[in-house]
C-alpha cells in the first residue's frame, strides 16, 4: 500500500495579510479556504473531507466545519504543532486512497501578531500535561528549547553562529522578491550575529517572524485533479514521527525528521540528491540545520558547512530552499509554519514561484516540518511532491 499517486494537491493559497487586528481567526480560516478552492477551480460544496489543527477555534474541526457550513464524511484534527498541515496532506491522501473522501480541505490561520503571542513568551501551562509538574518553573518558552539544541550542536560538531546565520541570509535573499513578506531587506551574516541575543546562542535574526495570516490546501482524487485546469502536483510520499526526552535519554543532536524524512523518500522512491527544491520549516535557523542533516541532504554534523556561503540561495546554491522567504522573513501564521511550506513547494512545482527564484525544471520537491518544541517534545512530518 502506498499513497504515491493516489492524491494530488489541486489548490493552494497563502493569505496575503500579515496583520489582521479586525478579523477573527475563523474568518481567516474561511478566507484561506475560499482562496484555495478558487485556486483549484472547486467550490465549498465539493469538499467532503476537512483537516485542521489546534489553531482552529472551537472543538477540533467542528466549529470551523460549521462556520463554513461544510458537509463532510471525513474529519481529522491531528495536531503535531506547526508540522500538522504537512501531515494533513498525507492523511488526506490516505483517506482519499481508501475512498473516505474525494476533496480534502486543509486550513490554518491565526493572529498571534495582533494578540501579542510570540515564541519568546511562556507557553500557557497545561496543568494536566504530565511534564508540567516538572518543567513549568523553568518556563516552557519556545525559543529556549531551540537554543538548547543549537548549543549542543555547536558543542558536538563545531557549528558556528555564522553558519546558522547563512540560513537567515538565504531566506532574506528570497524575501526581497516577495511583496507580502514581513522582512524584505537582504541581511548579511554580520547583521544576524550582531542582532540581539534572544536565548543564547540564538539571536533575534535566528528567529522567525510573528505574523497574522493563514493558508489552505485542497487535496483531491486523481480523476478530479485531471479534470481541473491546474498543473498536476502529485503526492508521492510522506512520513511522520515524533521525539521527546526518551525517558531521560536526551539527545538534542537530531530531530524526529530523522525518521519522517527517510520514510517519505522511500515511499516516493527518490533520494535527497534528486530533490530540486526544499521547503524546510524555519521557526529558527537551527530548525533548518537539523532537518537538512536528518533528511540526509548532508551528513549529521555537516549542516553548518552545508548551509554556508549561500548554498540555500535559489539560482546560486545547491539546494534552493524557502523561496517565499520562509518563516524567517515572509510569514509564520499562527506561529505554525507547516502550511506555507507546502504552499511554496506547490508554487515551485507549478512554475508559479517568483521568476527570479523559480527553480528550472522543478519536478521534485520536499516539504518538511517540525512542530512543538525541538528540545523537549516535537512532531515531524515530511512530504515528497512531484510535478507530472
Amino acid at each position: 500500500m502506498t499513497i504515491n499517486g493516489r492524491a494530488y494537491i489541486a489548490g493552494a493559497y497563502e493569505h496575503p495579510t500579515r496583520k489582521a487586528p479586525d478579523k477573527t481567526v475563523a474568518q481567516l480560516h474561511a478566507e484561506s479556504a475560499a482562496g484555495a478552492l478558487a485556486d483549484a477551480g472547486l467550490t465549498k460544496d465539493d469538499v467532503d473531507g476537512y483537516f485542521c489543527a489546534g489553531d482552529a477555534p472551537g472543538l477540533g474541526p467542528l466549529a470551523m466545519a460549521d462556520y463554513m457550513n461544510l458537509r463532510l464524511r471525513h474529519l481529522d484534527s491531528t495536531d503535531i504543532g506547526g508540522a500538522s498541515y504537512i501531515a494533513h496532506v498525507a492523511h488526506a491522501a490516505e483517506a482519499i486512497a481508501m475512498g473516505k473522501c474525494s476533496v480534502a480541505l486543509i486550513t490554518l490561520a491565526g493572529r498571534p501578531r495582533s494578540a501579542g503571542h510570540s515564541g519568546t513568551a511562556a507557553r500557557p501551562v497545561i496543568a494536566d500535561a504530565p511534564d508540567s509538574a516538572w518543567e513549568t518553573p523553568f518556563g516552557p518558552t519556545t525559543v529556549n528549547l531551540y537554543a538548547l539544541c543549537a548549543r549542543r550542536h555547536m558543542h558536538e560538531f563545531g557549528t558556528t553562529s555564522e553558519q546558522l546565520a547563512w540560513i537567515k541570509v538565504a531566506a532574506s535573499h528570497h524575501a526581497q522578491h516577495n511583496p507580502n513578506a514581513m522582512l524584505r531587506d537582504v541581511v548579511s551574516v554580520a547583521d544576524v550575529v550582531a542582532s540581539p541575543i534572544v536565548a543564547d546562542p540564538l539571536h533575534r535574526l535566528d528567529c522567525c517572524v510573528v505574523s497574522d495570516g493563514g493558508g489552505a490546501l485542497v487535496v483531491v482524487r486523481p480523476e478530479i485533479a485531471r479534470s481541473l485546469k491546474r498543473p498536476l502536483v502529485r503526492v508521492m510520499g510522506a512520513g511522520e514521527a515524533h521525539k521527546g526526552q526518551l525517558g531521560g535519554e536526551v539527545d538534542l543532536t537530531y530531530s524526529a525528521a530523522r525518521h519522517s524524512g527517510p520514510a517519505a523518500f522511500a515511499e516516493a522512491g527518490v533520494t535527497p540528491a534528486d530533490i530540486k527544491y526544499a521547503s524546510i520549516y524555519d521557526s529558527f535557523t537551527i530548525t533548518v540545520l537539523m532537518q537538512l542533516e536528518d533528511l540526509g541532504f548532508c551528513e549529521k554534523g555537516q549542516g553548518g558547512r552545508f548551509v554556508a556561503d549561500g548554498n540555500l540561495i535559489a539560482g546560486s546554491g545547491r539546494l534552493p530552499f524557502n523561496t517565499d522567504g520562509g518563516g524567517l522573513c515572509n510569514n509564520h501564521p499562527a506561529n505554525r509554519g507547516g502550511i506555507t511550506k507546502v504552499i511554496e513547494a506547490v508554487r515551485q512545482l507549478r512554475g508559479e514561484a517568483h521568476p527570479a527564484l523559480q527553480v528550472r525544471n522543478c519536478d521534485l520537491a520536499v516539504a518538511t516540518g517540525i512542530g512543538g518544541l525541538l528540545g523537549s517534545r516535537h512532531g515531524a512530518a515530511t512530504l515528497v511532491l512531484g510535478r507530472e
Partner: protein
Amino acid sequence: MTRITLRDGDWPDPPASPEAAPFVEAAREGRFLLRRCTACGKAHWYPRALCPFCLGETAWEEASGNGTIYSFTVLTREDPVRTVAYVTLAEGPTMLTSLVECDAQALAIGQPVRLVFARSRNGTPVPCFRPADPSASPRS
C-alpha cells in the same frame, strides 16, 4: 560577569500532581528523589508511575544530586537573567532544569554541577543545579 542568582521564592509554581507529590515532600526535607523501574532496573526522568522503557512499575530512590551540564541557554533578555539547561544526573537520566548561583560566562557543557533546591512562589521546591566547583561559583 553576569551573575545568576538562586531566585529563591520567585520561580513559577509547578501544578500539583499526585505523581510528583512524594518528590515534593522529600524535597521539602532536602532529599532529591528519582524513580527507577522495579522490572527493568532503569532510572528515568521526569518521574512516572510507569517505566518509560518497559511500562513496568517504578519506585522512588534517593539520588546523589551530582550531574554534569548537557546543554544550557542564558536568557539575557530576562530580568533577572536566568538559564534553562539539561543536566545529566550521575544516575543516568538527563533532566530539564536551571543553572543557578553561577557566573553565566563561566558555564560550559560537561561542567560538574550539584543539586540545589530553590522555592517557587508558593514555596514548592524546584530542583536546580549550581557549579560543583566552588571556584566557578564566586560569591558576590
